[in-house]
C-alpha cells in the first residue's frame, strides 16, 4: 500500500516534466526548424560528443577531457582565489568598524560593476585563455564571499566573544574557534552563490576570449551551425550547474552539521 502511495507521489511530481519533454520532442519534429533540434537528438549529441569514451577514462571522450579540463581548472582556480581573498578581507572588514565604514562605498561600487565589462580591458592586458578567465572569475565572485563573511563576522554573538575574553582566548585561537565557526553559515552561503556565479563567468569569458573550454565549444558550434552540438553544450552547462550546487550542498551539510542543530533558522 505504501509503495503504491509512493509511486503516486512520484507520478504527481514528474508528470509535467515528462509532458514538457514530450511536447518539445513532438513540436520540434513537426516544425523541422534546424535551429531547434528535438531533445532526443540533443541527448544523442551530448552522449556521442562527451560521454561515449572508454571505461578507463570514466566514459569521457578525448574531446570531453579537452573541453572540460581548461574550463574546470579556470573555474575552480578563480573561485578558490576569490574564496581565500574574500574570507581574509571579509574577516578584517567585519572585525573593524572603522575599516568597514571606510571601505563600504568602494565595495558597493566594486560589487556593482558587472564583471564582464572588464573583459575588454583584460583582453589587452592578459593572455587569452586561463589568465583572462581566472581573473574575470576571481574579480566577479569575490563580492558575495567578502560581503557575507564581513556580515557573518560582524554578527558574532557578543556573549561568545565575551566568554572567550573571560577565558583568555584571544588572537588566532579566538578567530579559529569562535569567530570563524560562528560566521561559517554565512560564509558558506556566500561561497555557494559565488560558485554558481563562477560558472556563468567561466562561460562568458570563454565565449569572448578563449582558446578552449566549453564556452569555446558553444561558439564554434554556433558559427558552424551545428545546432544539436550547441544545444548539447547548453544542456551540459545546466547539468553542471545542478551538480555543483548539489555537491556543495552535501559538503555544506556535512561541515555545518553541528551548526544547524544549534541554530536552526540561521542558514
Amino acid at each position, binding site marked *: 500500500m505504501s509503495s503504491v502511495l509512493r509511486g503516486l507521489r512520484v507520478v*504527481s*511530481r*514528474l*508528470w*509535467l*516534466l515528462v509532458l*514538457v519533454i514530450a511536447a518539445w520532442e513532438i513540436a520540434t519534429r513537426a516544425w523541422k526548424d534546424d*535551429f531547434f533540434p528535438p531533445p532526443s537528438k540533443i541527448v544523442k549529441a551530448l552522449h556521442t560528443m562527451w560521454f561515449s569514451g572508454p571505461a578507463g577514462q570514466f566514459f569521457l571522450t578525448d574531446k570531453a577531457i579537452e573541453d572540460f579540463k581548461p574550463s574546470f581548472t579556470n573555474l575552480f582556480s578563480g573561485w578558490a582565489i576569490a574564496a581565500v581573498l574574500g574570507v581574509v578581507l571579509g574577516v578584517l572588514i567585519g572585525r573593524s568598524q*572603522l575599516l568597514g*565604514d*571606510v*571601505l*563600504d*562605498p*568602494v565595495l*558597493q*561600487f*566594486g*560589487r*556593482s*560593476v*558587472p*564583471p*564582464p*565589462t*572588464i*573583459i*575588454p*580591458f583584460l*583582453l*589587452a*592586458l592578459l593572455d587569452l585563455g586561463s589568465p583572462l578567465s581566472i581573473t574575470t572569475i576571481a574579480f566577479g565572485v569575490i563580492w558575495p564571499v567578502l560581503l557575507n563573511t564581513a556580515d557573518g563576522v560582524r554578527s558574532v554573538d557578543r556573549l561568545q566573544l565575551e566568554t572567550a575574553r573571560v577565558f583568555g582566548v584571544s588572537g588566532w585561537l579566538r578567530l579559529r574557534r569562535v569567530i570563524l565557526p560562528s560566521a561559517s553559515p554565512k560564509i558558506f552561503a556566500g561561497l555557494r552563490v559565488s560558485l*554558481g556565479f563562477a*560558472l*556563468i563567468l567561466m*562561460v*562568458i569569458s570563454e*565565449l*569572448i576570449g578563449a582558446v578552449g573550454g566549453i564556452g569555446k565549444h*558553444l*561558439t564554434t*558550434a*554556433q558559427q558552424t*551551425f551545428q*545546432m544539436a552540438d*550547441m*544545444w548539447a*553544450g*547548453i*544542456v551540459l*552547462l*545546466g*547539468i*553542471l*550547474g*545542478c551538480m555543483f*550546487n548539489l555537491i556543495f550542498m552535501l559538503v555544506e551539510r556535512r561541515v555545518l552539521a553541528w551548526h544547524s542543530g544549534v541554530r536552526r533558522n540561521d542558514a
Partner: protein
Amino acid sequence: MTRRGTRFVRGAAGIAGAVVIAELATRFGPFDPDDVPPASTVLLRAVELAGDGEFLPEVAGTIRAWLGGLLLATLASVTLGLVLSLTPWLNNAARVVVEFLRPIPALALIPLAIVSFSSVTQSKMSLVFWAASWPILINTLYALRDVDPVAKETLRSFGFGKAAVLLRVSLPSAAPFAATGVRIAASVGLVVVVSTELFAGAGEGVGGFLMESQSGGGRPDLMLAGAVWAGVLGVIANALLVALERRTFRWHTAQTLEAA
C-alpha cells in the same frame, strides 16, 4: 557627530583613498601606461563620456533592454507564482521542471538567442527575461507559501472568496520578498545585458561600445571609463530599488530587518 555622519565621512575618505592609491599604483606601478592608464585619466574620460553624443544612446539602449526584460520577467513570474500557489497539484510538478531549467546559465543561451532572434535588442531582452525570471519566481513561491494561515482563515471565515483572500492577504504579504527577488534579478540582468552586447558585438549598448574601444589598437582608458559607468548604473539601480522597497513596504515588519 551622528552615526550616519561618521559613516558618510569615513566612506568619502575611503573613496578618496581608493582613487589616490589607484592613481599612485597606475602612475608608478609596474604596468605599461599604454595598457593601464592612470586612474585620473580614466575618471576624466568617464566624466567626458557623460556628455558624449555617441556613448549616451548606447547607455539608453542597454537600460531599455535591461528594464524591459526585468519588467516582463516580474509580470510573468509573479503571475505564474500566484497561479502555481493556487493549484498545488500543478505546483508540485512544476517545481521539478523549474529545478531543471533554473541551473542553465543565461549566458550559455547567448549563442542560441543570437541565431534565433534577428535583432540584438530582442536577444538581450529575452536573455534578461530568462535570467531575471528565476529569482523572482522562486522568491514569490516561497513568500506565498509562508503567508500567515491564520490571516487567510480569518478572511475565509468572514465569507471572503478565493480571489479576495489572494488580493487582500496573500499578495500584500508576499510582495516584500518578491521585491527582494526583483532586486537580485536586476543585478543579474545587468550582467546578462552587458555580456550579450559584448558577445553579439554590432556595437550595440555599453558592451558594444566597450568592444569597439577594444578593437583596433584599443583604448584602455575608454574601456575602463565604460566599466565605471556600468558600475554606476548598478549602484543607482540597487539604491533606487532599495528606496522603493522601503517606501512601499514601510508597514511590513520584515522590512526593519535588512533582507538579503
